[in-house]
């Protein structure tokens, strides 16, 4: 069920081979194999505890890999957007400070330069939140919070954006906005990898899905992947797949699947 979308001249940006990760003695991921090519837009779906976040962390290098290997293309810049729930919103920083702190390696002097201010304004404008630069991070709406961290990731001009649950805890309108924003960035040529709980609201709209439950259950476009058989293997519960407006719609025993799974 693997798909090969990449052009022959371009080697994959990220290759995961036989990747296993453990927390203590408990295996979280085992024998994960998949790769990401330039220009792809990939969503990782799976139930809570299926290892989605662990896989992202292994890719960005903050989670050690027990077995196997993750090969990152040399000089690849990764822009990472953490789950908004993990951010300390009471921390005393303004939006501008959050974005600029990513240039910690190259900048020794604390002062924000006018060149950086211009760049910050540009990236905030691109994401449609030009007016929040001097606000404290707690004074932002849910959608703005997500965008600020997206802006921070964009600030280092990444080759690939990696987002952990970009739509968790946001309302329907914000989810739409984020999805469209990501689609636009993808249109502009950015490679995107994200995890999501949200099968119908987000995953079904992506060009490629990876179903994960400790290992890769299926990998392909939503039409191939969102089938009752794959979903049962991934979630361990029978699910029905309907079609709505040309899109697969996953129904979990009469309830829409996007509803339930808490952390």
């Amino acid at each position, binding site marked *: 069920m693997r798909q090969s979308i990449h052009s022959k001249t371009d080697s994959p940006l990220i290759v995961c081979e036989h990747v296993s990760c453990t927390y203590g003695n408990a295996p979280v991921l085992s024998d994960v194999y998949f790769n990401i090519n330039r220009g792809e837009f990939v969503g990782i779906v799976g139930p809570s505890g299926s290892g989605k976040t662990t896989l992202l962390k292994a890719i960005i290098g*903050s989670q050690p890999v027990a077995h196997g290997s993750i090969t990152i293309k040399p000089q690849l810049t990764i822009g990472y957007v953490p789950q908004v729930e993990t951010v300390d919103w009471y921390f005393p920083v303004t939006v501008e400070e959050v974005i600029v*702190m990513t240039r910690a390696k190259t*900048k020794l002097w604390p002062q924000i330069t006018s060149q950086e201010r211009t760049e910050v304004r540009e990236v905030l404008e691109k994401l449609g939140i030009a007016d929040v630069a001097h606000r404290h991070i707690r004074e932002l709406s849910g959608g703005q919070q997500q965008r600020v961290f997206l802006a921070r990731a964009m600030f280092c001009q990444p080759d690939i954006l990696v987002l952990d649950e970009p739509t968790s805890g946001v309302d329907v309108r914000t989810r739409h906005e984020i999805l469209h924003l990501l689609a636009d960035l993808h249109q502009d040529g950015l490679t995107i990898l994200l995890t999501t709980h949200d099968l119908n609201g987000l995953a079904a709209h992506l060009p490629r899905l990876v179903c994960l439950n400790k290992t890769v259950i299926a990998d392909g476009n939503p039409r191939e992947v969102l089938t009752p058989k794959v979903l049962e293997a991934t979630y361990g519960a029978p699910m029905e797949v309907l079609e709505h407006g040309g899109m697969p719609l996953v129904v979990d025993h009469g309830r829409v699947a996007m509803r339930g799974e808490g952390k």
Partner: protein
Amino acid sequence: MIFALNIFEPYGFQFFRNGLIVATIAGALCGLLGVFVILRGMSYIGHGLSHAVFGGAAASAVIKVNYFLGAGIWGVVSGLLIARVARRRVIGADAAIGVVTTASFALGLALMNRYGQASKSIEAVLFGSVLGVKVVDIYAVALVAILGLAVVVLGYRKLLFSTFDRDVAQVSNVRVSLVEAMLLAMISLTILVTMRVIGTLLISALLVIPAASARMTTNSFSRLLWVSPIIGAVTCFVGMNLSYHLDTSASATIILLDAFVFVVVYAIAGTRNRMKMASLGHL
């Protein structure tokens, strides 16, 4: 007229001038590093390290090694031990700090009981003593203050990034563990050079209260790094003077003054928030 003379009376004493200089610089230094201590939830580490350094101070007095050398090495070893014990996931960092530093503290007490000259010196180490301050202490605290300032200015973004968002900082090639080790080393050095004036038991308050007061006045990180050292320095300066006139312990007076500032700022910040909420309510 008599009152005015009175104000300058303590300045006639060499010990007071030395103590005042050390305390004021120490206040600024603790205020600066305290910003990271409160934002990282490290106040227990400050508390613990000061107790660990006490063990080192006692041991170096017994074997007649230079205080800064003996207590400094002891502090570093305690820090490493904490890291080592905390690596056992079942124990946890706070318990590791509790085990290592209180054991070190107890060892210091036992050593001083057994080999120390008089109980007075224990009191001096526990609560600090202006009388014991020498010129070398001024040099030591000034040196550490310059070093601390250099670390915070030159490492500003790395420190901020790894404090705010450790994981992402690591991914962005910031050497987070190095940054954290530097910070811990600076806190240990600060405790080392401040302890003789403020004392083991109250020094952690100097690392926490000015920064906590400053935090309520601003939402900007860079401004916090100005306000907190100013509060620390001013309260230490005023507290030292007050302690002379009130005939109270210098460290206790300083900490009480810090606590007073905290209460005042807390009340003002609370009122301001309520007014803000009330004005929003009318919209």
